């Protein structure tokens, strides 16, 4: 029994159905972690991308090294780092927040590259045209650059969101009770891992496939010429 739900191990099918409500609770945690993590990645990635464009060499260079480092090292070790090292510096976060932070940090390295690619893809001529029209920097970003970036970056960001969703189970390692964490607990108590673990896989599969299909459709639907913000 867990969260007041009793499981029924008479057959694999009844077992699978009886643990669905429990896994449903875990699914909420999974989705929340992905949502918070992605929000962090979106913001932090933007900051990194802008710092990368800084004219001060020391800033742009160290940001470049930092993103490369974060991108090429495992999420699990980064998670352990945050989980065990932050408290040493007096920063004590709940496991869930630490996990979301690790996800956001890892993926900010990816999203910053997406933003950068998006900005670079807007042709030089567009900047020059905006200058020729005497548009301010802010106006140039709002009316020229960002509208042309959107069709490029939205699908790429979407794909990273799906990847992140698939990495959330790693948080179970630091005691976050997401779907995988709960499935493992059910496995420990019933000595049957097959059903709960298969169920987690079966829940993830349609979720990621549908999300990927949606992103694909959106990518096709977005006009390549750009989307005006007003």
């Amino acid at each position, binding site marked *: 029994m867990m969260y007041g739900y009793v499981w029924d191990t008479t057959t694999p099918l009844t077992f699978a159905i009886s643990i669905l409500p429990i896994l449903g609770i875990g699914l909420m945690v999974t989705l929340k972690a992905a949502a918070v993590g992605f929000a962090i990645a979106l913001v932090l990635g933007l900051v990194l991308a802008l710092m990368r464009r800084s004219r001060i060499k020391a800033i742009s260079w160290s940001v470049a090294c930092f993103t490369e480092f974060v991108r*090429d090292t495992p999420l699990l070790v980064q998670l352990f780092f945050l989980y065990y*090292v932050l408290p040493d510096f007096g920063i004590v976060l709940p496991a869930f927040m630490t996990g979301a932070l690790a996800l956001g940090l890892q993926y900010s390295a990816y999203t910053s590259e997406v933003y950068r690619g998006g900005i670079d893809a807007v042709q030089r001529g567009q900047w020059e045209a905006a200058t020729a029209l005497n548009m301010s920097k802010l106006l140039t970003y709002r009316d020229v650059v960002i509208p042309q970036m959107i069709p490029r970056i939205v699908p790429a960001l979407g794909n990273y969101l799906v990847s992140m969703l698939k990495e959330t189970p790693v948080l179970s390692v630091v005691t976050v009770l997401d779907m995988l964490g709960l499935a493992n607990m059910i496995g420990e108590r019933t000595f049957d891992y*097959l059903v709960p673990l298969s169920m987690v896989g079966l829940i993830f599969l349609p979720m990621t*496939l549908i999300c990927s299909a949606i992103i694909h459709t959106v990518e096709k639907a977005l006009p390549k010429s750009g989307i005006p913000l007003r």
Partner: protein
Amino acid sequence: MTWTQYLAPLLKGAQVTVTISLASIAIGAILAFAAGIARISSNRILSGIAFAYVALFRGTPLLVQLFWFYYALPLIGISFDPVTTGIVTLALLTGAFGAEVVRGALVAVPLAQHEAARALNFSRTYTLWHISMPQAIIEMMPPFGNLAVQNLKDTALVSLISIADLTFQAQSLRNITLDSATIYTMTLLGYFIIALFLMFVLRFVEMKLRRGPAFPRSAHS
């Protein structure tokens, strides 16, 4: 303990990490070509199986796959030692992502090349291996490089099925010494160095393939 004393166990772990990564990349590459080619085959059954394989492994979390192979599969009578389980799982995942790379690169070979091959009466198999593949393989190298680094990062998860890899050694050391900051920094640096080395090797292979006048375009980043 000081940081120099951490070096020996961490290096031992790094050795395991590199072994598992290289083995699963090698097997994954074979799977990638097999499944990628099967995906574009005109044989419905073959392409269907390949599609299902790719969707299944790309669509589910690696950690779930790993636990499934490690905890669940033995319950129906199939069990391997942890290292084999780790290598097989990582190879299956890398193969699934690699299959999409192989398929994409093959599909991107211009139709005109296929038509020229047809006009010269090459068989389909011959066209695949002697016309499409040599042109496609160069385009596969940069995404393969990304997959190799992803594979290396993913190996950290095998520490959770009791394999004494780099991450596992770091965890053990931390549990003894509680010197988290030093140990994890060294561990992260270890992964970073291995990743840089992997990227260097793949870039080198790409340059070798691209060398000469056949493909004069410079290597893209």
